[in-house]
């Protein structure tokens, strides 16, 4: 039985590469989080999550035994057992299909980042903290790709010109304030537009930055 200080984020970390895992642990601990368990494969990870009930999980996608999508499968399993359990999946490559699978359950608290992003240090820690609060974090490269695909394949006909501009800015991860500054709009106006986008895409109220990611993805995935 662990006795933890209140307010400290408890994390389980999984990766079969020990060097990387140790670096990750140092970064998380350096940011004041507690790494309560480490795993090198899917089964150990699932067992650790079941016994520790951590605040967040960070897992590599490709692990033993098969070296394919163990981390992703484990993430989906963990979230099936506990809806919205914050899980950050890391990968050497980003694949939009993987993101789609992660987002399928529609709940917040999902992260999908290139492994390199961990080396951003504080930014990575911030992203993880957003997950714990119910937000979602998707690698900018995925968003960029989906935006490109969306541009090719569909007409943006159910949103107004202005809403489309704002959605594109959201896809780049900008905050309402930044969008307003960029498009020379008042924060109030931006907020109204964002609300309209959410309702046109039929998104239920949730943690705001999860909703923002979903807005971009849902819009781009709908044909």
């Amino acid at each position: 039985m662990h006795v933890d200080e209140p307010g400290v984020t408890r994390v389980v970390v999984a990766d079969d590469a020990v060097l990387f895992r140790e670096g990750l642990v140092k970064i998380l601990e350096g940011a004041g989080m507690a790494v309560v368990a480490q795993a090198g494969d899917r089964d150990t990870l699932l067992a650790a999550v079941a016994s520790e009930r951590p605040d967040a999980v960070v897992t590599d996608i490709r692990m033993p035994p098969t070296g394919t999508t163990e981390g992703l499968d484990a993430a989906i399993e963990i979230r099936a057992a506990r809806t919205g359990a914050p899980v950050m999946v890391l990968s050497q490559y980003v694949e939009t299909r993987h993101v789609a699978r992660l987002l399928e359950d529609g709940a917040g608290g999902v992260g999908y980042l290139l492994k390199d992003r961990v080396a951003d240090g504080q930014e990575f820690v911030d992203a993880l903290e957003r997950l714990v609060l119910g937000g979602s974090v998707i690698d900018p490269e995925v968003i960029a790709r989906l935006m490109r695909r969306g541009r090719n394949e569909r007409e943006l006909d159910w949103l107004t010109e202005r809403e489309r501009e704002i959605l594109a800015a959201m896809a780049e991860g900008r905050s309402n304030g930044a969008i307003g500054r960029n498009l020379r709009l008042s924060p109030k106006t931006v907020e109204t537009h964002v609300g309209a986008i959410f309702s046109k895409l039929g998104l239920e109220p949730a943690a705001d930055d999860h909703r923002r990611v979903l807005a971009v993805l849902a819009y781009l995935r709908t044909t």
Partner: protein
Amino acid sequence: MTTRRWVLVGAAVLAAAWILGAEWSSIHAGVQENHLLDALVGGAFIGAGLVAIDRRPGNAIGPLMVVFGAIGYIPNWNNLGTIPLFPTLALASDMAVAALIANIAFVYPSGHLSSRLDRVVLWIIYGALGSTTLLAVLTLPRPPAGCDCAWTPLFAPNPSAFAFIYGLNQRLPFLLVPLFLIAVVLRWRRASRAERRALRPLWIAVALLAVVFLIGAFAQPTSDTTSNPFAYLMWEIRGVIAIAVPILFVWGLLSERLARSAVGDLVVELDKPMPAEDLEAALARTLRDPTLRISYAIGGERWVDCDGKPVPAPAADDAAGVTLVERDSEVLAALAHDPAIEPGLVQAAGVAAGMAIANERLRAEVRAQLEEVRASRRRIVEAGDAARRRVERDLHDGAQQRLVGLSLGLRMLEDRCRDVPGVADDVGALQTDLRAALKELRELARGLHPQILTEEGLGAAVESLADRSPVPVRVMIHDDERLPPPVEATAYFVVAEALTNVSKYAGASSAAVAIARSDGSLLVDVTDDGAGGATIGVGSGLLGLEDRVAALGGTIAIESPVGQGTRLHAEIPCM
């Protein structure tokens, strides 16, 4: 003895019992007729039919003769007058049984109908005899009151209608026999010399049959044969002739001459060039054995079929006889056939087809070699893919992991020396370089073999390629089923190379990838609206891909008129 033989012996015993019982019934009922002759007529048909079944299995003539012979005794049994339903059956068999004889004649000797005309005439005969028989059964009159008759189903008893229909039926031979004869004559005119020879027994039998049925039509059998001595005499002659017919049929069916004439046809047929599988079919036709297979001996102990595919060495057993075809004491081929076929006949056919078999064996040998080359090319492709997958895995688990780990280490170092002027910046610059190296390594590993292809298949991998392409790419995939790994990998690399060319050289504003399946092949189309003028030439990555696609038995073609975009089309068999 084989099981089939035992069954036939059992059938013969049953038939004998059926005939003896029938004659006993006639005698018991006091019917005055030549019982011996009557037993011999039907017995000849059944016996000949059983012999035909034994010697020419699969030929319809044997069963038809047996059925014809057996049905003929139903009226005898009915003489007892006590067996339920037999009065109706006896009437029906008397009225309709002649159709079976026409059927036997039409399918003689092959066992199946040889022309449309024969088919039409046979339908008319069956139709005319069958419909009158049915109507007669339906209108069958009520038996006289007080009759101690066997149970007979009555439908719409009508004595006058019945008399009319029965009379009509009994006179149908005046119409049907000439019709039948016309069909037989026309068949003769169509036939080749060899076929005519084979048909000779049929001619004799037909002539005899015509006499038999004409006699039957003129000399109405009555219950009181003695009152009309002429009719009685004709009836006896009819019986004697009738015995000859089945014997003639079977003799013709089994005669060496008939078989030799088929071998003669084979020689004529083989004179024309024909595809390999037709040689097998021609021999199968000649020997009337659809199960016949040829295996070719191609050096050593190796045997192949006509496509050059390896087959086990042919061995004789209960289910198959094996006849070797030799030339200059060298075994060329083996014919696996129905063991019931007379060995001499197979030998004769093998000799007749000797030259064709020798040619075919050479072709089969070349095909076998080609098949081996193809298989080894495919193995090379598969080994290459396996090596690529292994290297990708090694990079992922090794260098990439280490570099990411290193990147984390640098990050922590950067944090620790934030206060040391200059050093933090240097570490930051190293970090940037390291990121670039990681990115390059990632692209390299991905190019070797994308993990998503193994995980999720071609559709996902191609979508991923399209996502990465700097030129907008539209992807259309029909039927995203998983395919064998070499097929998926080849299609993937074709698309990857094509898209690389599109973004590097074509100057296109958009491209499209279409993947579909048709006729067991995967069709891959990559089109763009660029400058065109592309070729599969030396130095092009497509040349290597062409080899790769060809190794799987596929093709790749490029259409690229200058100024009109490029269309790359690949077809890869799904194996």
